[in-house]
């Protein structure tokens, strides 16, 4: 008997696996640590390879079942999916085919079935916010550290009595036949890579932070402003391979950072008139069909400097002086930039290591390693244990989705 299936992580990979298993009649328990599903893809604005907007949900809220959001609405509507947000796996025991899993759920405080998103709580108290316009479940989330008297007053005034601030954590124990690890990735915060000064100056940021700035539904409405003083950005410089391909940090190539850096460079060159973008690189690795982003960027006038950064020195006017060694010219170049964007490595999410050890799996640079059974799909991590998406290592959305479907196919064939 197949099912129920436990899926850990509700990013693109976990959501795909959950919906497709559920549609095939398998009961799935989808566990997500945060208050919303979506994972890293929630904050990415436009997506390669189609350049569609990740935020389709906002504009198409009235329409159920459009392409990308289909999964997200299905997550709350499909009766075979038991979605548990704010939840983590505490402990796994039992045997393959019949695992016993203990889950812990932190309170969400707001009942998504009752909340009508009237906006009362979010306008009156900082403790309540809509984490993203396309969050699922579509409801406000609560930051328990900000709960004060005003928040409590607001809670009692909720027109649908959706808020219960006295909710407490709960635990649950389930028996599942298969486990799917879809815990994704975390963007490395490169404090440890000294020469770039990350964390020492507000105008030194990462690509994920830039994605948020470019997002039209984000805090600046998509306008690029210097974090230090809010002045408009005129010059952007990106640096590739920050933390990746380094024996001191991550020995692997993070694979997609060249593509998303160029995606961002093109968005800036095309949608933000007059902002100059330069990219410092060792190799541009826009694998297979993504080479077009590279050519497009060159056509748009993005500057490319093959070399490395010598030093970054903040100036009094809020800009940074950046000195680069250009290996093609064998010359040092000095640039003035407003925003210094680091294409930082993708590392395994926190908690992945614990799952690997609880289930006795192999790891590959910290990510879950597939078993070496010679199968081409590479999504089996152990007996009745599967892995998909960026929990396996850096990957784009289409690849994560394909892997999730391979997992579904394997489980439907009896978990082998």
């Amino acid at each position, binding site marked *: 008997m197949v099912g129920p299936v436990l899926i850990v992580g509700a990013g693109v990979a976990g959501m795909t696996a959950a919906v497709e298993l559920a549609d095939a009649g398998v009961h799935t328990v989808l566990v997500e640590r945060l208050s919303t599903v979506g994972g890293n893809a929630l904050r990415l604005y436009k997506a390669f390879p189609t350049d569609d907007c990740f935020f389709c949900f906002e504009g198409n809220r009235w329409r159920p079942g459009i392409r990308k959001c289909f999964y997200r609405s299905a997550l709350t509507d499909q009766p075979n999916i038991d979605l548990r947000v704010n939840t983590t796996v505490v402990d796994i025991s039992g045997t393959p085919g019949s695992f016993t899993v203990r889950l812990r759920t932190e309170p969400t405080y707001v009942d998504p079935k009752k909340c009508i998103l009237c906006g009362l709580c979010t306008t009156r108290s900082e403790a309540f916010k809509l984490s993203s316009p396309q969050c699922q479940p579509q409801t406000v989330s609560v930051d328990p550290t900000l709960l004060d008297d005003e928040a409590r007053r607001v809670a009692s005034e909720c027109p649908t009595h959706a808020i219960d601030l006295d909710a407490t954590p709960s635990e649950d124990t389930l028996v599942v036949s298969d486990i799917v690890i879809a815990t994704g990735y975390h963007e490395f915060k490169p404090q440890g890579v*000294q*020469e770039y*000064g990350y964390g*020492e*100056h507000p105008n*030194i940021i990462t690509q994920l932070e830039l994605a948020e700035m470019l997002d039209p539904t984000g805090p600046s409405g998509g306008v690029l402003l210097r974090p230090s003083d809010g002045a408009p950005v005129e010059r952007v410089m990106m640096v590739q391979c920050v933390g990746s391909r380094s024996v001191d940090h991550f020995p692997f190539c993070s694979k997609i950072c060249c593509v998303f850096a160029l995606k961002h460079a093109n968005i800036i060159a095309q949608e933000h008139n007059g902002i100059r973008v330069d990219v410092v690189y060792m190799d*541009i690795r826009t694998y297979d069909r993504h080479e077009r982003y*590279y*050519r497009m960027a*060159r*056509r748009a*006038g993005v*500057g*490319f400097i*093959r070399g490395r950064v*010598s*030093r*970054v*020195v*903040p100036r009094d006017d809020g800009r940074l002086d950046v*000195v*680069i060694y250009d290996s*093609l*010219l064998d*010359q*040092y*170049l*000095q*640039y*003035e930039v407003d925003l210094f964007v680091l294409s930082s490595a993708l590392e395994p999410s926190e908690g992945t290591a614990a799952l690997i050890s609880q289930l006795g799996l192999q790891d590959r640079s910290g990510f879950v390693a597939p078993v070496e059974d010679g199968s081409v799909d590479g999504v089996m991590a152990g007996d009745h244990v599967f892995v998909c998406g960026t929990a396996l290592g850096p990957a784009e959305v289409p690849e994560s989705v394909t892997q999730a479907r391979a997992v579904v196919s394997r489980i439907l064939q009896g978990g082998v």
Partner: protein
Amino acid sequence: MSEAGEHSTTPVTLVDPIDISTLDPHFRNEIRSMPNGDDLYACFACTTCTAACPIACQWTYKPHQLIRMILLGMRNEVLSSKEIWECLTCFQCQERCPQGVRVTDIIFDCKNLAAEEGLVPENILGLGRQLLESGQLYQVTADWEREDLGLEPEVPGLDPEPMKAILHGTRTGRLVGGGD
């Protein structure tokens, strides 16, 4: 903020970087607007052109570096380089470039710009002057050469005068100073 300065432990005084703000950001557009210059943007610095070039081994600036310097805006350095004039115009670089950059044509564009700014090297000007003065670059230097081959001393029908007259009215005439 001050901490960010602290890790700049590179001996600052030894590195003398080119300040990008002193370069000419419009140079690339200038070249792109010239004949066959538009594909300049496509260069991804693969160095195929330099690998193909029969003479770049003797150059300070290799063909891929010249393209890079144009993209960066190093207008003075490119236009006053000796390399653009030493190019053999063999078109090897252009034939092989995987991105369709018309390297040889771009070098011609550079020579045209350099010429307008009076940056033609003296030896090239000398050739121009010779053309203007004699109407031809290669002259029969000794009668016996033709005699040995059983030819009459003068090349039959060769009259450089009309060529001289025409050249005087051309840009070559203007550039070498002998024209109108």
